[in-house]
């Protein structure tokens, strides 16, 4: 039996009270944490060099020279870390017909009327847009960032090309910070989400409410009562 497109390795249901659902493996979570910390450090150090009123933030990295030195290296860490996440998550983020419906009913999404939305797989259209938006912007940022990485790559491009890269890098950075704000806000707004990032699990109710199709797939794949060794204490 072939797994549905959105069921990722490690996803599993544990019946109980409440039902627990494994959403992210420990590898995926470590991968996400490295990416998240890198992105925050990059945003702080990048903003410090972006606007004079934020230059004081360079103090967090040991001064202007250190900020200038570290920022691109953190970018390299983020690029490879995100590449790992990309190959973990890309398949489950493919666009499906229900995603179009979700987008058309964005007003209900914002108002929290999830009963008016179609049943969704592991990710909703908003999460998929965050995924693809991050993927696109990180490619743009690493490419433009290498061009303006003065210490090692200044001789490979013309000054005219470097000027374009500076502008592209700044615009893409603003965009990715906005995507990050949406991503973090959604995790705060939708209660019960943070545990997916910390412990890798969500409750069955959370999965029922937000990703019912995915929950049904998991249940039908693994009949209840045969859910392996990781039972919840309530059992």
């Amino acid at each position, binding site marked *: 039996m072939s797994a549905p497109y959105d069921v990722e390795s490690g996803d599993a249901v544990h*019946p109980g009270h409440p*039902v627990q659902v494994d959403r992210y493996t420990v590898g995926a979570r470590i991968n996400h944490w490295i990416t998240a910390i890198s992105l925050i450090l990059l945003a702080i150090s990048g903003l410090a060099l972006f606007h004079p009123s934020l230059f004081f933030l360079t103090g967090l990295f040991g001064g202007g020279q250190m900020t200038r030195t570290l920022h691109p290296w953190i970018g390299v860490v983020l690029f490879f870390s995100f590449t790992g996440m990309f190959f973990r998550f890309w398949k489950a983020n493919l666009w499906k017909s229900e995603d179009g419906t979700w987008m058309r009913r964005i007003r209900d999404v914002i108002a929290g009327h999830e009963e008016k939305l179609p049943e969704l797989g592991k990710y909703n259209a908003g999460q998929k847009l965050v995924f693809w938006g991050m993927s696109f912007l990180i490619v743009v940022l690493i490419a433009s960032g290498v061009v303006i990485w003065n*210490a090692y790559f200044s001789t490979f491009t013309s000054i005219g090309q470097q*000027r374009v890269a500076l*502008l592209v890098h*700044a615009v893409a950075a603003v965009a990715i910070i906005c995507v990050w704000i949406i991503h973090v806000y959604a995790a705060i707004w939708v209660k019960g989400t943070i545990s997916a990032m910390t412990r890798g699990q969500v409750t069955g109710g959370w999965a029922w409410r937000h990703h019912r199709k995915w929950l049904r797939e998991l249940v039908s794949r693994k009949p209840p*009562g045969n859910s392996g060794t990781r039972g919840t204490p309530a059992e």
Partner: protein
Amino acid sequence: MFPPIPNPPVTATPAKLGDNDLIRRSASNLRVPVEFKEPVAKLIDVSKCIGCKACQAACLEWNELHEEIGTFNGSYTNPPDLTENSLTLMRFTEWVNPETDNLEWLIRKDGCMHCADPGCLKACPAPGAIVQYSNGIVDFDHDKCIGCGYCVKGCPFNIPRISKTDHKAYKCTLCSDRVAVGQGPACQKACPTQAIVFGTKAQMKEWAEGRITDLKSRGYKNAGLYDPPGVGGTHVMYVLQHADQPSLYAGLPDNPRISRIVEAWKGVTKYVGLGVIGFAAVAGALHYLVAGANKVTPEDEANAEKLTGGGRS
């Protein structure tokens, strides 16, 4: 002959240029000083240059710099480009004038032009790393430089160089330390033909007029002064035999100005960018206040338990 600048007194002279004379400071808001110094300028008369490189040597001497011994690569231009040590460089161009069929040896002393509208300063993210004095000198403060190379991208003349040793930006200072005590720059002092003269900008323009008249009388009908308005004029100016084609002189820009891309990056992007980020954060906070948290209900949990064959545990 332009009257030479007298030698300095042997007693210590207090510097006449200080923080109170700054009219621009990179990445900072600055109160403009009440008292303005007379704008100064260096005039480089290309038609009088004999290519001796005394200016290059004097620059290294005064600034206590040492250029690495390089290799000969077919041109008198040596080193082949400006470096963090060679703050000035004689660029040699051999050009056949199509009108006269004469070979003309165009020797331009390259280096910082000290723009009135300095692209390096506007691009710099480090507060105070680049300053502009009210007399027109644009100077780098290396203690504050972070080595990002933004000045290199901001400069319309491709002048600053980043040191591979200390990762800081270097360029001609117009010998601000000498000018501060009433002297002219070292290159001007060393020039044997007065191809380089130094004084107030008004004096230099007047002196250039005389030179241009002389050149025109000798058949250089396009002789003129290079003081490009696109960067607000410069405090290093050239007298060119062919002022209609500055690019003949080893690629001197015909119409230099701060790149529009740099202006967009340092202008609208900076303000709109922070605005958009702020808007996203505020919109999130407001949404939370208005819509409230999106909570999982007990019914949701019950439904999930039913789906997984609940009640059995």
